């Protein structure tokens, strides 16, 4: 890995990591015992978004009481089924490995991606453990799941922050993204026609922004839920947000798993070795300047 080249990524991530450790190490933060000086600013920031509204108790109660579970259940059943159908009907795309492979992802990128992937998977699993807690008996098992959720969140935030910095330029929306979306990236046909996409296609971009910005919102709302360092109505709003956004993220996570594992045969190797085949790049990322 070329440290000098990646310095503008390594430095901010490093600083962030140190700050996180110091922050975590300070007893004040990890003992959220109600409103105190450290939480006052947090609350104030929340208020900018949430306003001064009461009335969220009933909404939270009825949605948490029945709606959220159903949404998650639907997502966990329907999304895989839809993509299973896609696999059966349309199937995976296959590309030849002729010619020199093109470097797509450096070592740092891959490392951060897998760190993010692992922590995100843990977040999803332990999050679903809470959502469906009563089917696994609750208790110490799920409670330790919450602790794992917390650690995974910190790890995810750090690694996703790094990926965010690395990929930001390539993930910015482009006009051709609209075209890509109109043909759903060509995945609705078995043909291999060139698809309008740069280093990353529109689908990947959606997933990127969802995972990073959405992940950030999850972290923020998650912190409120963990610390209870806000007035109760704000906590309720954060809980609703956290659950709904989680549903969206779980859905897109499943989609990402399918797309990266099954939609293109052997696609995972690009994140393992860092290289994509020429044909794949020419078709799937036709606007990418090598």
């Amino acid at each position, binding site marked *: 890995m070329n440290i000098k080249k990646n310095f503008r990524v390594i430095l901010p991530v490093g600083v962030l990591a140190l700050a996180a450790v110091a922050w*975590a190490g300070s007893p004040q933060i990890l003992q959220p015992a109600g409103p105190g000086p450290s939480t006052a600013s947090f609350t104030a920031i929340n208020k900018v978004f949430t306003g001064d509204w009461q009335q969220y108790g009933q909404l939270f109660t009825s949605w948490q009481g029945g709606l959220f579970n159903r949404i998650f259940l639907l997502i966990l059943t329907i999304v895989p089924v839809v993509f299973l159908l896609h696999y059966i009907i349309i199937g995976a795309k296959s590309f030849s490995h002729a010619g020199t492979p093109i470097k797509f992802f450096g070592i740092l990128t891959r490392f951060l991606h897998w760190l993010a992937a692992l922590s995100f998977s843990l977040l999803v699993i332990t999050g679903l453990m809470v959502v469906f*807690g*009563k089917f696994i008996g609750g208790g110490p098992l*799920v409670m330790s799941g919450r602790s794992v959720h917390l*650690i995974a969140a910190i790890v995810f935030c750090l690694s996703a922050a790094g990926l965010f910095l690395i990929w930001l330029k390539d993930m910015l929306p482009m006009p051709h993204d609209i075209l890509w979306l109109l043909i759903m990236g060509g995945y609705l046909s078995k043909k291999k026609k060139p698809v309008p996409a740069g280093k990353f296609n529109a689908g990947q971009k959606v997933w990127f922004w969802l995972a990073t910005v959405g992940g950030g919102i999850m972290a923020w709302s998650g912190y409120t*839920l963990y610390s209870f360092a806000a007035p109760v109505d704000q906590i309720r709003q954060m*809980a609703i947000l956290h659950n709904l956004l989680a549903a969206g993220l779980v859905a897109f996570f499943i989609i990402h798993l399918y797309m990266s594992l099954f939609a293109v045969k052997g696609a995972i190797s690009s994140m393992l070795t860092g290289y994509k085949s020429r044909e794949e790049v020419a078709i799937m990322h036709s606007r990418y300047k090598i």
Partner: protein
Amino acid sequence: MARMKFLCDVERCIDCNGCVVACKEGNQVPVGINRRRVITIGEGKPGEKSISVACMHCSDAPCIAVCPVDAIYQREDGIVLVNKKTCIGCGYCFMACPFGAPQFPSGKVFGARGAMDKCTFCAGGPEKTFSDEEKQLYGQNRIAEGKVPLCAAMCATKALMAGDANVIADAYRKRVFARGSGANAWGWDRAYGKK
């Protein structure tokens, strides 16, 4: 089956915190957890009122509705209890409760919340009645002894009542009737602006 309820008579509550401490002392609740609290509004001004609040053991308990692990349950007599061994400390019950009854000890891994604690109506918990485990986790089980919750029993002015909803409603109705519309509130000495 009789349904258990609380009612705090605001005209009598003097914010003496007898109920709060009776509960803490009787159930050995740790410092920092408040199963019961007295709230005073309008302090220092005419119209100052105090009310003692704890878990209201709602007929339609929102906390039961939102618990993801079904740790909270309701007995036939209406008393709502939590199973501390099942509870994961997520705090949803706190978010759902209009009264802020659920309390959480801190000090778990990374300062996370421990299992929820709240007023048990002095009815202990799911463990064996009168066992040491029940005492440690939940406090006294006075209902099983045929006794009234400590807070209401020890209320200084008999403002806080606890027990059979019908009986309490009856008692409160009698008081309200006796008070009329408040001593000298609308009596003849107030009429025509005499006061």
